């Protein structure tokens, strides 16, 4: 009140002079310290988001730990979980790329087996295999969230330490996008805990529905045809379909590439041949695209680091087999959280698309491979 009274006592001209001086001062401050102010504002904004990321990371870790505690009596669980969520994989050297896929496959298998075995060592009570797989998936999501947080925190601290405006500007642009990714991983932890099918399970879901459809006649089931992957042979539209899917209901993507390769080779050895390969997988949608919309193309529809894709491409090229891809568009969040109704509703449409492809691209009694690619969590 005292300040206001003082201001009111000043005459009109003097008052305007003070206001104009203030404007000038503000102008000079912005000219000389503008970037520095911007740097600090950006740093506060990024710092706030990184703090929230830390909360999310802690929530994911707590949830995972809580789930493991249901099946374990070990006292060193926290230590072991931290060891697992800080584990890493070194990719093979690519200076001499010849034979890199074989090396990569070896490293990937090693990592996968070690990770699963380490989880099994944590479980002391009698637990179903699929539950252990789901815990593995929970740990994977927590690991991804942990890595994301550590990398962002590294750049944030580096920018703060060096006072580098351009580093923090890049972070300011990237962090909101990565924050959405982190939210997706946190939601994924819950989905894996419940063991519900996720958006990425659309491939195995289509395979399941195709096998159990009224128009399909089941001929043979080959469980564990290759590691963690089953093959169902059915008759549909007077064609023999070998349906490949990862083993469920635990979180598992199987080895569809190896299964397709072995199927093609085995059918060749038995005097028959595969005439067509159809792959069904989830694909990341562009912002304007509708979730659950289906697109058709050619090529191997499979994600991951590339080993399985390489095997499929090698094999279909060797025998000149046409390969058709059906992809279901989803956002990253939708792909790793419980499957949305819109996406689940697209299964009927995909099956009719498969029928249409089969009828137009093959003849009666032809043998066809249908691969439902993706995580088989929540789908037997």
């Amino acid at each position: 009140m005292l300040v206001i009274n003082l201001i009111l006592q000043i005459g009109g001209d003097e008052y305007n002079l003070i206001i104009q001086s203030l404007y000038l001062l503000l102008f000079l401050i912005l000219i000389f310290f503008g970037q520095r102010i911007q740097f600090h504002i950006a740093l506060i904004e990024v710092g706030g988001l990184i703090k929230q990321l830390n909360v999310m990371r802690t929530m994911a870790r707590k949830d995972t730990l809580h789930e493991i505690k249901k099946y374990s009596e070990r006292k060193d669980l926290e230590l072991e979980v931290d060891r697992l969520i800080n584990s890493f994989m070194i990719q093979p050297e690519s200076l001499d790329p010849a034979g890199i896929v074989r090396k990569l496959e070896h490293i990937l298998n090693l990592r996968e087996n070690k990770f699963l075995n380490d989880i099994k060592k944590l479980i002391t009570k009698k637990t179903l295999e699929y539950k252990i797989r789901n815990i593995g998936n929970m740990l994977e999501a927590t690991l991804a969230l942990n890595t994301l947080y550590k990398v962002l925190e590294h750049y944030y601290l580096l920018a703060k330490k060096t006072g580098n405006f351009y580093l923090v500007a890049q972070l300011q642009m990237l962090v909101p996008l990565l924050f959405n990714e982190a939210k997706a991983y946190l939601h994924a932890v819950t989905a894996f805990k419940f063991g519900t099918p996720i958006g990425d399970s659309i491939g195995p879901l289509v395979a399941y529905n195709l096998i159990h459809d009224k128009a399909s006649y089941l001929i043979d089931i080959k469980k564990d045809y290759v590691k963690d992957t089953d093959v169902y042979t059915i008759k549909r539209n007077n064609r023999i379909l070998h349906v490949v899917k990862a083993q469920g209901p635990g979180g598992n993507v199987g080895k569809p590439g190896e299964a397709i390769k072995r199927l093609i080779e085995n059918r060749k050895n038995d005097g028959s041949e595969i005439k067509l390969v159809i792959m069904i997988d989830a694909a990341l949608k562009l912002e304007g695209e509708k979730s659950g919309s289906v697109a058709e193309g050619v090529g191997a529809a499979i994600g991951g680091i590339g080993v399985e894709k390489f095997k499929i491409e090698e094999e279909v090229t060797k025998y000149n087999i046409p390969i058709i891809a059906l992809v279901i568009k989803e956002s990253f969040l939708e792909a790793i959280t419980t499957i949305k109704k819109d996406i689940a509703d697209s299964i009927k449409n995909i099956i009719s698309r498969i029928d249409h492809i089969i009828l137009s691209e093959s003849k009666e009694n032809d043998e066809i491979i249908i691969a439902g690619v993706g995580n088989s969590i929540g789908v037997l």
Partner: protein
Amino acid sequence: MINYIVYFIGDLSLNSVILILLILFIIFLLFSDILKRSSAMKLSKPIIKTELICVRCGFKYVRNFKEDDFISKTTGEKCERCGGILRIYRIYSMEEKRVK
């Protein structure tokens, strides 16, 4: 207090009114940014539904998801229409409700 404010505003020049409005605008921007950020932090809890089908008569049921439900599982629940075994054939999430 109100009289004081009215008297104060009446006595101000155009320059100072603009300055006050500018300060109020900056405060509004800061608060809206804080609100936006706090809403970004809110996580949504999905409503998960399980659809079951009677293996005998094909009648369909929808209920909330229970832990350990998975597609193809026979849950032990019986069909209200014919007493047949129910099998889970669909699990999906519906619109989400926001939680803090």
